């Protein structure tokens, strides 16, 4: 069952500081409301994965690894490969994370990242079919949160995109339904580049890329994932607050413009 979340008492004490600053148009880390934290992206850091990316978003650190294996297709899409996104909130990343089965927050994170990749048709799953109805490639995108300082969705989304665009798989050919690998490596068939941008509402002000302290006092957040053609491909509202329709429209426009430079940043690292 989904249960009301309790924030630490410290968050309540910090609330006034965060809100007072925001009313003056400032933030804890001296950003303006529409500033994004500095982003660092390192691709291919895990050699044994098909693709991988470390993303530092301010002090938030997320690692995504991509593995490509074979498996059975879903009955309703017998001629398509499979995309699976999973998120691990590893206990070393935050005092609030506990080992164990995924909770609703990590499931939400994985599903929002999944929706961005799936709905923008970022991976050409049709080319990942080996034997229709019997065998296809499965692309596992595994999100590892290593240090939680807020806005995990954006960090995970960018890391997933970086890992996918830099991923390599063995070249293959299919003869009479038999899979034969070749020696050379080829990139994954990636056609689109979804980037999520999250904004938070704090005391009526919209700020982009909330840090952890801001997330703890925000009333709600809205993630808007846009693709390379500036179409919206996924959205997710979270938190106990509400948005006016005008705020939503405002956030969508900001997200479209912010995503351009971040998409460029992720793609510029691809060799």
């Amino acid at each position: 069952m989904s249960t009301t979340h309790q924030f630490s008492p410290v968050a309540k004490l910090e609330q006034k500081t965060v809100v007072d600053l925001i009313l003056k148009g400032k933030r804890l880390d001296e950003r303006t409301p529409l500033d994004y934290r500095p982003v660092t992206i390192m691709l291919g850091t895990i050699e044994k994965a098909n693709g991988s990316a470390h993303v530092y978003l301010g002090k938030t650190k997320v690692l995504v690894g991509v593995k490509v294996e074979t498996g059975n297709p879903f009955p309703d899409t017998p001629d398509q490969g499979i995309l699976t996104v999973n998120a691990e909130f590893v206990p070393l990343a935050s005092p609030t994370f506990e080992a164990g089965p995924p909770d609703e927050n990590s499931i939400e994170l994985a599903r929002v990242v999944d929706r961005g990749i799936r709905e923008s048709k970022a991976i050409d799953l049709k080319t990942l079919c080996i034997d229709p109805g019997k065998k296809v490639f499965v692309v596992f995108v595994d999100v590892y949160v290593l240090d939680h300082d807020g806005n995990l969705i954006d960090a995970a989304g960018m890391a997933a995109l970086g890992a996918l665009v830099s991923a390599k798989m063995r070249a293959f050919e299919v003869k009479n339904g038999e899979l034969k690998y070749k020696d050379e490596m080829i990139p994954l068939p990636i056609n689109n580049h979804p980037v999520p941008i999250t904004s938070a509402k704090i005391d009526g002000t919209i700020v982009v890329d909330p840090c952890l302290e801001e997330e703890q006092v925000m009333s709600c957040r809205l993630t808007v994932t846009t693709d390379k053609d500036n179409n919206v491909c996924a959205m997710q509202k979270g938190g106990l607050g509400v948005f006016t329709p005008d705020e939503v429209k405002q956030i969508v426009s900001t997200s479209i413009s912010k995503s351009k430079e971040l998409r460029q940043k992720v793609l510029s690292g691809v060799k």
Partner: protein
Amino acid sequence: MGGQKKTVSLFDDRGLRVDGRRIDELRPIKLEVGILDKADGSAYIEHGKNKILAAVYGPREAHPKHIALADRAVVRCRYHMASFSVEERKSPAPSRRELELSKVIREALEPSIMSEYFPRATIDLFIEVLQADAGTRCAGITAASLALADAGIPMRELVAGCAAGKIEGKVVLDLSDIEDKQGEADLPVALMPKSNVISLLQMDGSMSEDEFKQALEMGTAACRKIYEMQREALRQKYLVAREGNEEKEEMAEVKA
């Protein structure tokens, strides 16, 4: 979305949809309040072919005790689909989708609940989808909000839910199952109509910024219509019941 091999045209030559609706027309909606005996509040919704029950228990003592909050009630929500509610049998174990929906539905309804009146208590919200035909989270919210009102829980206002989306390049309201499967985008919205604020917003598919704005307008307008139906359903249950009682009392007085 997509992926189905057999595709049919979603519009006929008159521009009507597969079930004969116009692009901005809702499916028929039936609402009933207070239909479960044991629950503190309950409601039933039929939204097109969706058939959904919602029940509220509480405010009641938090159990286990450690989940209690000192300054407000804990709201718990479980969205669940019956195994027979969909075409192919669904495992009754909660899926990742159901866990996510339980969370977003709770976050859609919690802003309307004055939970600060009941510290250390829980308010439990159960949504059982008996038959699903696209748009279950929105219909579930519409029903659950009525169940909360039926339980007598103080609320800022009702919450109504409805999805908009895009099929064959056109922005349409309230997608049915086939439209959702073949369509290009789905945008579930929940609105608190009096204060005109959005408490649930999700999207998947592909829409331009203008299409999104159009779909959002369409979705929120439909939520306002559903809100009127919710008020009528509560009136049916409580106003009519009270008038009935008054008549009986008058009759009794006349007899005496």
